[in-house]
């Protein structure tokens, strides 16, 4: 294939690819689920929960939150990249990835919002 043709093909297809991924991204949402249901999902799934903070453990690099909703409770790990002002009894919405650490399920938080 000539270079000019390959270049035109590469440029066109990269723009089309970006457009398709943009459309997929628009549709790509995480729905809020009960913690009891979250615990049945596969590891590495992106999850969203709403609940109350019942316990906070502060370590040098992260915060470990215990979040409870009507169905169950789960640990959530928040890395201390920025200052976060949260307290026990705060109602929060969390988006993160379901992980397993030392035989216990937990959520590695990517977004946290105080409600």
């Amino acid at each position, binding site marked *: 294939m000539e270079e000019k043709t390959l270049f035109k093909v590469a440029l066109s297809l990269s723009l089309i690819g970006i457009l*398709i991924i943009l459309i997929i991204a628009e549709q790509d949402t995480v729905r809020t689920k009960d913690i009891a249901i979250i615990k049945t999902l596969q*590891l590495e799934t992106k999850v969203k929960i709403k609940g109350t903070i019942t316990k906070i453990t502060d370590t040098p690099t992260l915060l470990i939150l215990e979040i409870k909703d009507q169905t169950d409770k789960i640990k959530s790990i928040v890395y201390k990249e920025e200052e976060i002002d949260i307290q026990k009894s705060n109602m929060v919405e969390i988006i993160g990835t379901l992980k397993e650490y030392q035989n216990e399920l937990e959520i590695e938080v990517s977004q946290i919002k105080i409600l």
Partner: protein
Amino acid sequence: MIIQILIAILIGVLLGIITGLTPGIHINLISLLILSLSPIFLNYTSPLILAIIIVAMAITHTFLDTIPSIFLGAPDPNQVLSVLPGHKLLLKGFGYEAIILTVLGSLSALILSIAFAPLIFFLIPKIYPIIKDYIGYLLLIISALLILREKTSKTWALIIFFLAGTLGVLTLNLYNIKNPLFSLLSGLFGTSSLIISLKNKIKIPKQKITYPNIKSKTAIKTISISLLVGTVCSFLPGLGPSQAAIIASQLLKKIEQKAFLILVGSLSTINMVISFIALYTINKARNGAVIIISKILETLTLSNLILLLACSLVAASIATMLAIFITKFFSKVITKINYKILCLSIISLITLLTLFLSNLIGILILITATFIGIIAPLKNIGRNHLMGCLILPITLYFIL
């Protein structure tokens, strides 16, 4: 305990051989696997031993990853800039010499960065609080300077930066994809390079086993500059060895091809060592393997860090001998291999891995990233601008 540590180093070195020599298999992937399986491993060993395995693997990887970059034209993102000068030497029959230069850079840089570790321990916590609020703007300025430095076409450098950046922003914000970075980086730097190699119908000439002839003054100056620039870039997010190499080569003004290979070799190793120090001093993990170590260890003490650095030295010694041996083997074998079949096999392997790790959306990202990655060499633009795939999302994160 000593026996456990030595076994851990050897396992790490073995894993580093696999990741270093196989294009598309990155230490982040293996580190992630180790983390996923850590609940099982921790029944038999300690988190520190798992961290030593990852460290040994990471250091060995930085010594060996130039081999596929130069011999196969299939670089990992940290070795993007080694491809061109390394490939030029390969096509003249001096591929062995090119690898030795990068290994020389890696080994010298490791020793130097450990020797200067106490100074770096002192400096990083002083510098980081001053610059942390300006990281987004710093990244933008550095990216702009790198684009303005582009001799062929600044416009295309900017377009490539934004194409890769847009793809990075979209990919990293998708919720329902696992391991998005693998397909993104493999496409931009891996499969695109292999396709260009196929298109150019490269024929590798017979390789000579010769040793590099470089002035010690040049080598010392190159490694010193790489330590300075590599240290700063290592604790700024989004800036990897490729960007550090461009910045360092500006400071060195006219840099000969051989010195550039020493520079590239040294920067990837410095990046790894300084990342360990940054984790201890400012609690920031700046590359995938170090992020995994921070999760396994939870707290990194000074004695742990010293042990990890000592293990790095042991792994580096083994990796140096391995690099020399493997490169001699590659030099003899490369002309006997059908290069086209080899490239196609590697592309197939990367595609299968993407499908396994990230499903069909990963394949779409891989294909799109491959096409973006192809544009850079077709337009004679530096592939370092493709790092916009990480720099743009990180800049937006800090600024917005």
